[in-house]
């Protein structure tokens, strides 16, 4: 088999894996938009906050230590214990539920009935608030995230493909884990929305707020629920991305990777986020492989948006998005 074809196959596989990671971030956006019509600008910061909280709890870091030390002249940083990973994930998940409750009680509740653009502006405010609050709580250092996930080349795939083609493919173990987790997450979300009472209520709210309210569904509960789920998805995304780069404030910029996925897959479709992520992942990696060297490289950042734009022109609601028809 020609060498270039083998390389292209390897790039395609890695593109699929990268796409899964994009989709994990995009899922959080979709959940909130589907249930409330809000484009949550702060989703990237939820990823950062969730991951920082996980590492902070896991390593026994004292929240707001810098602030406490500055005010009281103390020198405290750690409790002196570490917390098992599973327990730390549960605590971080609980923290995201608390964040969801705070957002609903102190922001969304006061904006019921306001135009979508106002809600969007509120999420921009949340982004900036959390951008300052998260480092204040956990510090600005790069935090090493270790939840025991395997990283590095998958030996089995390397050996097997070498046996077949005389060239071993590189696939990162962490990407394989991310793909499995994403599959489980999507399955769980679909089952939840289809077969549980809360899931059906969530879909009802997504279809029509007023109608849902009129049949006794609590909008407040649904919003807390959906923001909590989005917070949990952010935690999963934070674990995957944070394992690669350490946890730091710039992790929030993974949201930039989710935008073209949403444009392509649609803002209201969970499968759309996955398919959109895969198309973007493969598209940008193959483009970089084939065309990148001819145009100076580093094409991934803009190509994903060009690809999404092309889709947008022909199908504005995205591949799986719902076409909104408003009648006067």
């Amino acid at each position, binding site marked *: 088999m020609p060498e270039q074809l083998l*390389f292209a196959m*390897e*790039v395609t596989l*890695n*593109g699929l*894996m*990268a796409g899964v*990671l994009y989709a994990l971030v995009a899922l959080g956006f979709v959940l909130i938009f589907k249930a409330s019509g809000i484009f949550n600008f702060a989703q990237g910061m939820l990823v950062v906050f969730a991951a920082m909280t996980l590492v902070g709890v896991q390593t026994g870091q004292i929240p707001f230590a*810098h602030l406490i*030390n500055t005010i009281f*002249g103390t*020198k405290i*940083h750690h409790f002196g214990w570490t917390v098992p990973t599973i327990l730390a994930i549960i605590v971080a998940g609980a923290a995201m539920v608390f964040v969801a409750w705070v957002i609903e009680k102190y922001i969304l509740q006061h904006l019921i009935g306001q135009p979508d653009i106002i809600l969007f502006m509120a999420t921009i405010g949340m982004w900036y608030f959390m951008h*300052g609050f998260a*480092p204040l709580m956990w510090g*600005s*250092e*790069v935090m*090493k*995230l*270790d939840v025991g996930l395997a*990283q*590095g*080349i998958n030996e089995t795939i390397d050996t097997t493909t070498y046996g077949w083609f005389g060239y071993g493919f*590189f696939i*990162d173990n962490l990407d394989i884990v991310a793909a499995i987790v994403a599959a489980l997450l999507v399955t769980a979300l679909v089952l939840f929305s289809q077969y549980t009472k809360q899931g059906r209520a969530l879909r009802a709210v997504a279809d029509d707020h007023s109608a849902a309210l009129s049949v006794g569904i609590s909008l407040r509960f649904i919003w807390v629920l959906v923001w909590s789920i989005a917070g949990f998805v952010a935690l999963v995304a934070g674990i995957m*991305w944070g394992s*690669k*780069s*350490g946890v*730091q*404030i*710039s*992790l929030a*910029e*993974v949201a930039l*990777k989710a935008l073209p996925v949403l444009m392509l897959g649609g803002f209201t479709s969970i499968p759309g986020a996955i398919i959109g992520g895969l198309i973007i992942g493969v598209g*940008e*990696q193959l483009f*970089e*492989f084939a065309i*990148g060297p001819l145009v*100076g*490289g*580093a094409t*991934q*950042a*803009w190509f994903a948006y060009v690809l999404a734009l092309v889709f947008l022109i022909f199908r504005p609601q995205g591949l799986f998005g719902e076409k909104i028809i408003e009648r006067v």
Partner: protein
Amino acid sequence: MTFKRVAAASVAALMVGSPVMADLVFPSLSYRTGPFAAGGIPYADGFADYMTLLNERDGGIGGVAVQVPECETAYNTEKGVECYESTKGMGALAYNPLSTGITYQLIPKATADDIPLYTPGYGRTSAANGNVFSHVFNFPANYWNGASAAINHVLDLNNGDLKGKKIVLLHFNGAYGKEPIPTLTKLGEKHGYDLTTIPIDYPGQEQKAQWLQIRREKPDYVLFWGWGVMNQVAIQEAANIRYPMDQFIGVWWSGAEHDVKPAGEKATGYKAMTFHGVGSDYPVFGDLQKYVVDAGKAAGDGSNVGTVIYNRGVYAAMMLAEAAKKAQEIHGVADITSAQMRDGLEQLEITNARMAELGMEGFGPEFKVSCANHGGPGAIAIQQWDGAAGKWSLISDFGASDMDVIQPLIDADSAAYAAENNIEPQCN
């Protein structure tokens, strides 16, 4: 009545917030927030702590207290320029903008204001030509020295023969990351290696395509010009594809503890260039601990003392303090002006004996600044990461860079700047 109260409060606030006019003022354009805060915090801490040490231990510089008013730039060029404008009225003697973007904006402003800029290891490389850039100083090393030092190290490892070797420059896709390309290209022509440049767009959280290319091309060495999250991801990806870490060499902005720690022990062997010492095994750090950290006067919590970027802040502060001292000697006054500070920078001489007096023997090379040479010796050492021990170690001495290649590049670039801005040579 209300007006009087407001006026009185404003005067009181100014008196509290502004340094006394007689103090030596070195504003710190720091970034403790934003995506690059992990690097900005230790640098600002090191810079401030060294100046605090001089105040606490020596009573300032030449008997005059030092003030370091901080202004947060968040590594944003516009905010950096605002910081410059808002602090220069305090009697600023010199600026260390800690950002290449801010430096480019400040070069014409500071020159017009007669305030020197000190940009060690960053900023405009050709500012090393003092004949053109009268108010900019970038000693002891710049990016082109860095590129040459990396190649010198690789030459040492290959018995001086790089013919047919493949070298990749993995770099941030912006002005900073592209800085070494002309030097590496010229050095490639001289030594016969093949250079491939692979850019990474900001922020650099996704580098799969770049590292798959490196895996395919199997370069003998990868040189790296990154910053921020790009560093941590690159080192992790190198470990993932099992690229030999001792053949992966970063510039000094890609060689801090927080760059390698996320990859754990897999980062062991990774190398980086440096223009100053590593660790805290120098007497000055004992003084910093005693007079600053233990006395509760440190800018941070003291946990960064001895880390790579903290040390860089200390080194920069030491250079400015020594230049201020030189300015006091030249002009015979303790309360120097920014113009006199510029003279001090231009006549600065760092000797090994002086470094020993400062408790920093071997921390950096000895050198002398001159009217024409604002760039210093360009002497650079290589440091290597030991993941098990969790520390960097110097594995070479401070070696000279190839000025036969670099000087013509500096001359050409600075000549172009002089022509664009109608600058007459300042040195006779």
